[in-house]
């Protein structure tokens, strides 16, 4: 039943896409200024049907309708309602339906909210967006249909991977999807802009809101994923340079560069070609990331049951996208004149772009190198975190300094006064760093430089904030918040990295372990029944040797039935100045439990500063058009 409804709705969306493309190309030839009414109507139908199809799938999951293969494979009647719903997008097919949903929603919103822009440009954008919709819809229907039915109908489902049974599943994927698939709209807009000759300033104005929206969601999605990894995976870290994390960073670098270039394009009407390249690149990288992860070429914490045929389809569609994008770009590309003064804001924004490009290339090489080596000489290697840390971290130092100074420069040309102020602040930052170095612990020269640069950026942003309070120039606020957030993020990551404690050992129940700072007493274990799992809860008493404060930590080993799976839940005590992090595991019911104990200073501040970066973006979105 649901299977038929769902497939019919998807086919309707497919037909509507063709109709929209057809009508839009007819309308292109008519010289009136407004887009024909029927195109709006078709788009409204399209968005309605696609959202209905998504709700159909959700209903299938809520009712545990195992006549759908997708529900059978990824759900279970005993699962709490919350995870039944969130499970809809916790698998390949469901998440692809969400993907198509977002393509359609952005297509509709772009059409409706850009009425004051050139008609040809809007129609071309609509056409390209619908080509993308068609591409992914065909993929969905032919290869990964969430509405495929199964007969005879199974009585019970296979269940959702226990590691996904977490509140974060409800928000992490949708956020990222809005962020990554949202990029599609300015991929289409960039192609449309080339074809309709609607470039420069007006183009920048038409896409900047969309760029900001997808930037905010991408950033937030990555942060939520990072927090989730921190408490779920039990390693106590928050960034592992895992292939999937790298795949999410690539479009993020491109979009961050784009967001900054658009300012130049809007204010100075230059860098058009570069902005177009970034528009195209952002979405292409988003799809590439999806391709690498879903095809099973890269292994990571996100194990979608992989299937090579998926990879082949996405790869061919991706090549088609890149090929047509490049063809149109080189056919329509017009030479631009660049005239930049060295002491101008433009140069600093360009510098930001170079850094982003460098980071992007580094991560891309680190990610693809193992694949190439495997294909070419059949050598199995992996690229570990040290590579990324060594290449990226030193570059963050000049990056942060430019980030602080850059925004203070005016357009076209500026005075030298800014340099003196910066020099003074660097000295202050150096003194603060010396203070930390002297009183809290010694660290390497590189770390010293990072702390100085981060403190400099923080101080500079705080001064800018003080100026903002005086002159109330709202345009500055989002930038100040985000840049301050970045400075704080690097600073707290640095502190966290330098001053973390980690102890690994094995304990029997009842044993006591004395570490350098804590006495850890494994008092006992208890067994509790969860909603759909059994939990073995360890009871640990931690005594701080310095001040004798006693704390209890309760890590869990959860045993999920059907199929029997274990997950380890870390016990985390978050305080304003540090996190205590304790995980326990058990192999083959040995009487020894493996314990990992960590003390991580300022963990919560890493999250707060990362969220600040995103918050800046959201503040920018709330600024009204006339202020912007």
């Amino acid at each position, binding site marked *: 039943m649901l299977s038929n409804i769902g497939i019919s709705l998807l086919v309707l969306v497919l037909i509507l896409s063709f109709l929209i493309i057809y009508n839009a190309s007819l309308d292109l030839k008519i010289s009136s200024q407004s887009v024909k009414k029927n195109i709006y109507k078709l788009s409204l139908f399209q968005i309605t049907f696609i959202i209905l199809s998504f709700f159909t799938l959700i209903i299938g999951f809520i009712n545990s309708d195992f006549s759908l293969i997708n529900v059978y494979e990824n759900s279970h009647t005993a699962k709490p309602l919350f995870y039944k719903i969130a499970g809809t997008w916790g698998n390949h097919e469901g998440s692809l339906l969400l993907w198509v949903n977002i393509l359609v929603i952005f297509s509709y919103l772009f059409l409706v909210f850009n009425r004051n822009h050139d008609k040809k440009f809007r129609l071309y954008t609509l056409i390209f967006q619908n080509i993308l919709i068609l591409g992914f819809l065909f993929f969905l229907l032919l290869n990964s249909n969430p509405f495929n039915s199964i007969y005879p109908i199974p009585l019970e489902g296979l269940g959702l991977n226990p590691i996904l049974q977490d509140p974060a599943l409800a928000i992490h994927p949708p956020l990222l999807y809005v962020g990554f698939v949202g990029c599609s709209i300015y991929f289409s807009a960039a192609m449309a802009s080339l074809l309709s000759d609607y470039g420069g300033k007006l183009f920048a104005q038409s896409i900047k809101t969309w760029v900001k929206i997808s930037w905010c969601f991408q950033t937030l999605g990555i942060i939520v994923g990072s927090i989730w990894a921190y408490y779920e995976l039990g390693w106590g870290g928050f960034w592992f340079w895992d292939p999937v994390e790298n795949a999410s960073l690539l479009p993020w670098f491109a979009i961050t560069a784009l967001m900054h270039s658009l300012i130049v394009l809007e204010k100075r009407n230059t860098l058009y070609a570069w902005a177009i390249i970034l528009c195209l690149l952002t979405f292409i990288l988003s799809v590439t990331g999806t391709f690498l992860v879903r095809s099973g070429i890269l292994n*990571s914490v996100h194990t979608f049951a992989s299937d090579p045929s998926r990879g082949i389809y996405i790869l061919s569609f991706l090549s088609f996208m890149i090929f047509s994008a490049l063809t149109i770009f080189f056919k329509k590309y017009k030479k631009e004149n660049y005239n930049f003064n060295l002491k101008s804001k433009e140069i600093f924004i360009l510098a930001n772009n170079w850094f982003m490009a460098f980071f992007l290339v580094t991560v891309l090489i680190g990610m693809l190198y193992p694949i190439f080596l495997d294909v070419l000489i059949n050598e199995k290697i992996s690229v570990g975190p040290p590579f990324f840390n060594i*290449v990226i971290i030193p570059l963050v130092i000049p990056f942060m300094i430019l980030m602080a100074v850059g925004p203070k420069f005016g357009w076209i040309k500026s005075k030298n006064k800014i340099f003196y102020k910066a020099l003074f602040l660097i000295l202050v930052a150096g003194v603060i760093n010396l203070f930390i170095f002297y009183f809290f612990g010694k660290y390497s020269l590189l770390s010293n430089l990072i702390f100085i640069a981060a403190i400099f950026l923080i101080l500079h942003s705080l001064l800018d904030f003080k100026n903002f309070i005086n002159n109330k120039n709202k345009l500055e606020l989002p930038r100040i918040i985000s840049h301050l957030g970045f400075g704080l993020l690097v600073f707290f990551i640095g502190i966290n990295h330098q001053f973390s404690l980690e102890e690994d050992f*094995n304990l029997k129940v009842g044993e006591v372990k004395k570490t350098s700072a804590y006495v850890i007493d494994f008092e006992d274990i208890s067994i509790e029944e969860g909603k759909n799992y059994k939990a073995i809860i360890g009871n640990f008493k931690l005594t701080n040797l310095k001040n004798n404060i006693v704390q209890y930590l309760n890590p869990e080993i959860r045993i999920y039935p059907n199929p029997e799976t274990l997950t380890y839940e870390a016990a985390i005590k978050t305080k304003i100045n540090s996190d205590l992090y304790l995980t326990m595991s058990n192999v083959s019911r040995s009487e020894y439990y493996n314990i990992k104990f960590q003390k991580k200073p300022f963990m919560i501040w890493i999250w707060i500063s990362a969220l600040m970066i995103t918050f800046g973006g959201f503040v920018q979105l709330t600024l009204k058009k006339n202020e912007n």
Partner: protein
Amino acid sequence: MLTKKVKNRILFLFFIFLLSIFAIFFIIKSLNKNILYFSSPTEIKEREDIPFGKAMRVGGMVKKGSLIINQKNIQFVVTDFENEILISYSGTVPSLFAEEKGVVAEGSLSDKNFFIASRILAKHDENYMPPEIKEIIEKNAK
């Protein structure tokens, strides 16, 4: 002749070119220093040039009955059904780590028969096996 503007531009482009060459060189160099080679126990036994103390990965099956856990660490034997290597590790293990299951350990060799792991990877589910291990096992099963 070249105007000042054109000259500046050529200089600028040259500068960018040099910078990118330098950047790529830097990336490749760090890459070569930091890649982790994956070896099977047999490769470790047979290869002469295997470095001791350098980070690498070893993979295979955890041998049945080889698991020993004491206060400090976890020890187990990894086998590819031809050769074996003893691995020592301290810390928590992934939930899928068990005897007779596939495992990848990251760490360094202390000698040809003893590997000290700093990380255990067993991110696969019950139906899935890391491609590296699958290949080894298929090869040795023949």
